[in-house]
């Protein structure tokens, strides 16, 4: 039981990464590698700030800012410097490795004995792992609601149009460069913030904690899409969170099968690859046909 609660808590905490990556991967339509650098950057910023006596909430806000700043650099390299987006992301990601070492003054810092967002009387009264469920739920509800609201504004609609059809957006007077930069800043800001929360939950920050982040974030997006199918944009944002929780369950099952935590990155990659190939595989095996047939029988009852 506690394993399941723990998985839900992790799924909720990590969901913010999926939602953040959704902005670039699904709305702007490109893969942003920067996140592998901004996740530990946010973690390093928050942990270093907390160990210097900054309040945990302010430290988390600082993590958003540093993440957004890295996103700004990627955005400028891409739009003004005309560097392909994949390469621009890799450059900033690599640069972040050194910056993270500078911020932390070493390869890792522990938060042992320090106040974090989880050091709260109410949270400490809860049963084990329910603190991450509560905090994760609050974060993801606030972030998702804010993004849904933003996407319904004039600016948000211009942002969506930029990813959908940049030539049209441009001809309607939308500055597509600015929209792209804004998307990268908000996305990486949220990733940095996610890094800050997860580091506080783990009790430490480590320079290597960014490895494989993009795969985990993509997995929650893709699993959400595969499981829930055709949805509106707002529903798809919610589906990312459910996808993130499902992904944790899959990991839980796989670990129960006897794999070790050292295998996690391999397993994540395999799970994501399978999900990405699912449309192709289901066509190959005739699953579509079987499912639609099943639905028809079910519907006729």
């Amino acid at each position, binding site marked *: 039981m506690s394993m399941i609660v723990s998985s839900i808590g992790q799924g909720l905490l990590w969901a913010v990464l999926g939602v953040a990556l959704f902005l670039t991967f699904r709305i702007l339509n490109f893969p942003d590698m920067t996140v592998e650098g901004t996740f530990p950057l946010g973690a390093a910023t928050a942990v270093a700030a907390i160990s210097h006596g900054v309040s945990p909430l302010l430290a988390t806000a600082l993590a958003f800012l540093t993440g957004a700043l890295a996103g700004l650099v990627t955005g400028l390299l891409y739009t003004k410097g005309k560097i392909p987006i994949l390469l621009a992301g890799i450059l900033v990601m690599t640069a972040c490795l050194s910056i993270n070492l500078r911020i932390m003054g070493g390869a890792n810092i522990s938060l042992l004995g320090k106040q974090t967002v989880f050091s709260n009387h109410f949270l400490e009264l809860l049963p084990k792992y329910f603190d991450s469920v509560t905090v994760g739920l609050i974060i993801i509800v606030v972030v998702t609601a804010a993004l849904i609201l933003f996407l319904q*504004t*004039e600016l948000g609609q*211009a942002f969506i149009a930029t990813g959908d*059809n940049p030539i049209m957006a441009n001809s309607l007077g939308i*500055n597509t460069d600015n929209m792209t930069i804004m998307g990268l800043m908000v996305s990486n800001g949220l990733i940095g913030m996610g890094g800050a929360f997860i580091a506080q939950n783990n009790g430490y920050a480590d320079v290597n904690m960014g490895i494989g982040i993009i795969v985990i974030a993509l997995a929650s997006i893709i699993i959400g899409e595969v499981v829930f199918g055709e949805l509106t944009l707002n529903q798809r944002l919610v589906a990312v969170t459910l996808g993130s929780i499902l992904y944790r369950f899959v990991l839980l099952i796989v670990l129960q099968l006897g794999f070790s935590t050292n295998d996690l990155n391999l397993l994540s990659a395999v799970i994501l690859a399978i999900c990405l190939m699912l449309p192709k595989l289901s066509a190959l095996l005739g699953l579509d046909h079987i499912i639609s047939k099943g639905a028809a029988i079910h519907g006729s009852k």
Partner: protein
Amino acid sequence: MVQNKPLLSLKEVVAYVNPNTPAQTALLNQLNLEIFEGDFITVIGPNGAGKSTLFNTIAGSIPVGSGQLLHHGRNIAKENVVKRSQFISRVFQDPKMGTAPRMTVAENLNLAAKRGDSRTLKLRGLKKKRQLFKKLTASMNNGLADKLDVATENLSGGQRQALSFLMAIIKRPELLLLDEHTAALDPKTSAQLMEQTNRNITEQKLTCLMITHRMDDALKYGNRLVVLDKGKITFDVSGEQKKKLTKEDLLALFSEIE
């Protein structure tokens, strides 16, 4: 018609492909053109004459290499597409280019209603404008009005182009650029959209430049006709003279070119 000051004038405009490289070629060759308010100009010319380049240069997606582009007498040659979108709107030939595929018909119209304006954190207000969108789409008589909440990727080519056209005029443009906007459609749909285009342009007295490959359309519509060849305007008639022009005259013009 009082034609003293042009809305837009191109003076000796040169536009290049591959500028500043050995492969540099001039697509517009010291082109001169004056566009007056209320003009509905049909543009014809052989392939590679520079028709699309002319539109791209006016809209700002290809830079002016040399010469002047005067909007009410002010040189706007250095201004970008975004800035020029305040007075120019455009319909592309490719039905895929004019709309955002994953956004609905209503959302697309809503985006276009703010063409050239700054976009803020104000809520988009889709419901308030629904009646207007319904009325506009119904005027096209092609079923678009029943698809306000459908993503445009699920529309037919004809519906998409009709939508692109509505998006171009929902906020009155000072200058409307139509780049063979009916060319990708079947003959019947194409004729239908052309009729709607003409009705809207004449009723609202829009200033318009329309590229077409159909000589019949070039003769039938508009008050002025220009022929473009090798990056220059080689023929320019308007008013009564244009009305008298026949298809044979045009064919003769084209054989001279070739």
